């Protein structure tokens, strides 16, 4: 009898927990629900019922929104892929240098990078803008790519160095006996062995780039060259008449990230938690 009461009590408390989490989850997912629900409505439908999905679901909103958004998406994907590629290349080499060798000057260069992690970049924006102008890089993708590669590699070098130090020394020794050059060691040993951490870092950088706003705002002028974030804000201030089209645009803008997430879910949850422990 007593055991039964205890069991009911634990069951009840378990249920309360689930209820609480579901409540919080539904609240935090509510904006996205509204986004998807509204994306298929005309304004008249929306004013009548903003809460639920409605039929007919106007897919033409998506067609229209795609016409507005597609160039931003391709721009951003180009910027992201190029930036992540170059960052990874530089990070691997530099982290290899720090992890495997203690050269004269190693310490100096290590702190040269580390200090940047502590240094806030607020004041940098204006001289950076002028610098890019002097280099004739304004209104090009390369301005964004080069700045993000320079800024993004620092944290990654820091994390990857620890990772490479954990790779067994025997592997490198064996490679060296076989006459592998340093570059070959980086690409045949370090690169395959640090795949998971590299992809986590890449995804995190991707998220950051997808939301990057201030730099492209000041650097890029042509509407056809804007990346996602700035493009969406432009769209928001330009087309306020039809909420459905706007929300369809937002939905489309979210899809690439959702796709990436679906393919890397396990890695992502694990990598984030692991990164959290180290950081």
């Amino acid at each position, binding site marked *: 009898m007593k055991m039964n009461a205890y069991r009911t009590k634990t069951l009840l408390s*378990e249920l309360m*927990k689930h209820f609480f*989490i579901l409540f*919080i*989850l539904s609240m*935090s997912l509510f*904006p996205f629900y509204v*986004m998807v629900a509204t994306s298929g409505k005309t304004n008249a439908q929306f004013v009548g019922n*903003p809460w639920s999905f409605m039929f007919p679901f106007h897919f033409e909103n998506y067609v229209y929104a795609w016409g507005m958004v597609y160039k931003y998406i391709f721009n951003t994907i180009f910027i992201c892929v190029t930036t992540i590629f170059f960052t990874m290349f*530089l990070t691997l*080499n530099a982290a*290899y240098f720090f992890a*495997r*060798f*203690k*050269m*004269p*000057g190693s310490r100096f*260069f290590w702190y040269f*990078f580390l200090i940047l992690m502590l*240094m*806030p*970049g*607020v*004041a940098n924006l*204006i*001289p*950076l*803008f*002028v*610098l890019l102008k002097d280099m004739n890089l304004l209104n090009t993708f390369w301005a964004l790519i*080069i*700045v993000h590669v320079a*800024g993004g*590699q*620092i944290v990654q070098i820091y994390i990857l160095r620890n990772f490479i*130090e954990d790779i067994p020394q025997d592997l490198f020794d064996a490679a060296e006996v076989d006459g592998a050059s*340093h570059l070959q060691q980086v690409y045949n040993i370090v690169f395959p062995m640090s795949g998971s951490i590299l992809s986590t870092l890449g995804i995190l950088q991707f998220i950051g780039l997808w*939301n990057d*706003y201030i730099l492209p705002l*000041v650097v890029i002028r042509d509407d056809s060259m804007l990346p*996602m*974030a700035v493009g*969406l804000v432009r769209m*928001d201030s330009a087309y306020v008449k039809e*909420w459905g089209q706007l*929300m369809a645009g*937002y939905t489309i*803008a*979210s899809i690439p*990230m*959702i796709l990436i*997430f679906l393919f890397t*879910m396990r890695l*992502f*949850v694990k990598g984030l*938690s692991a990164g*959290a*422990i180290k*950081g």
Partner: protein
Amino acid sequence: MPRDIGFKRVKHYWKLYLFLLPSVLLVAVFSYYPAISAMYHSFFRWNGEDINYWVGLENFKKVLGVITPWVVLFILFYLVIIYAKEKNLLSYVLRFVSGIICLAVTSVLLAYKGFVFLTPFSFAYLYTNISQTVIAVVFWGFWLLVFQFLVSEESENKWMYLMTTVCFFIASIMKILGFAAIFSFSAILLLVGLALWLVPAMNKLKTIEIARTIHAFTSISIAFWALGAYSGGDPIMWGGFYVLAILIVFNIVKMFPSIVTAVVVHRIKSDALNYWYRVLFVIPMIIPGMVYLLIWKFFFNPNEGIFNRILVYTKVMDVLVYMDGILGWGGVFKEGVMPVWLGNEHLVLPALILWGFPWVGVVGVLIYLAGLQGIDTSVYEAAELDGASAIQKFTHIEMPLIMTQVRINLVLMVIGTLQAYAHILILFDIDGGPNGKLMIPGLYMFREAFREGRAGYACAIGLIIFFLILILTELNNRYIRVEK
């Protein structure tokens, strides 16, 4: 282990430097050069292009007003940061100077310049400030409760938290009675300081040194605040810092939902569901932040937006209208009129605080969960045998374990709040909302540089924010990280 290569063997290994060269070059050109250039140009009248001439300290004078006290305070603050932890005479002197003398000078100067009463006392004034009174009582009452829960009964620090809360409460009441806010704070803190340093019985308390250190830091902050308000600097800049202070206070409150959520997810017994909840909590992160921001902007739309509709639907709007009638909020909420959340001077700050309800930060939850995973199940079993309640488990088992993460998140949050301005630029445009209500320093810098053409002045503003964050980072490194 890294292989050691001395100077003699460098000529065989020089190629390794090539691995580092591109990274170093990029960082030097795109991170170091702009930072140095910003420092350099803060002494110039510069519009980013052709106009560029030396003006000395003029930019800083415009931001700070009188420069000397700022520099003195800054040096004092830095010295306190460095030496406060040690147990030598210098440490005592520094903390005494900042805790007592600094505040005494501030209070006397404020009194001398006539910044004691801002409004003469009257019951009419008191009545219009009832809402402030209510907020102050609720807010400090909330903190008292929180500390009751967070600080375990046997903790030596308990009296300190209590005293701090009570002091701030008294200062809030003084402000409502018509005293200038800064004067109330500096006077109350001065009294506390005198008690801490001069009452002999205090020396017997174990935590007295920590209390004195915290008091010294708080005092210097108050002195900085007084300087910002009354030293004749740029009022827009210091108004911005006031907004930031409010935002930071509320952001601290907003940290609790993440902690509670993480703890509840952690306590769920089923492993499979635990995993799936975690996956679901990642979803808000993969939706681009920009999209989230714009959806919330749409929520706050006065007529079509969902937010007002929810308020009407749940009858909260009626309550707000009623409260407006009693508390005299100046007709912000009126019967039949939809409040313009992002366009009304009095509502922009509440809108920004409400923004992102229920304030569960994805990264935060995952970080706390990672910290909680270190708890062994046997600890829970032992606690249950002892008959610990859910809240006791939280305060005694879970909270101490994630305290490190909470502290780090707190510092990151403060630094982030000081630095970020993109969201305000998007929601309220470059002028910082109606009447420039939300013109925070970062945004001000942006506007000065890219619209007003005062790049030199903007560099000076950026540099001041930069130093502030640098100090916070230093505080973090010395006082928060180490105690892991």
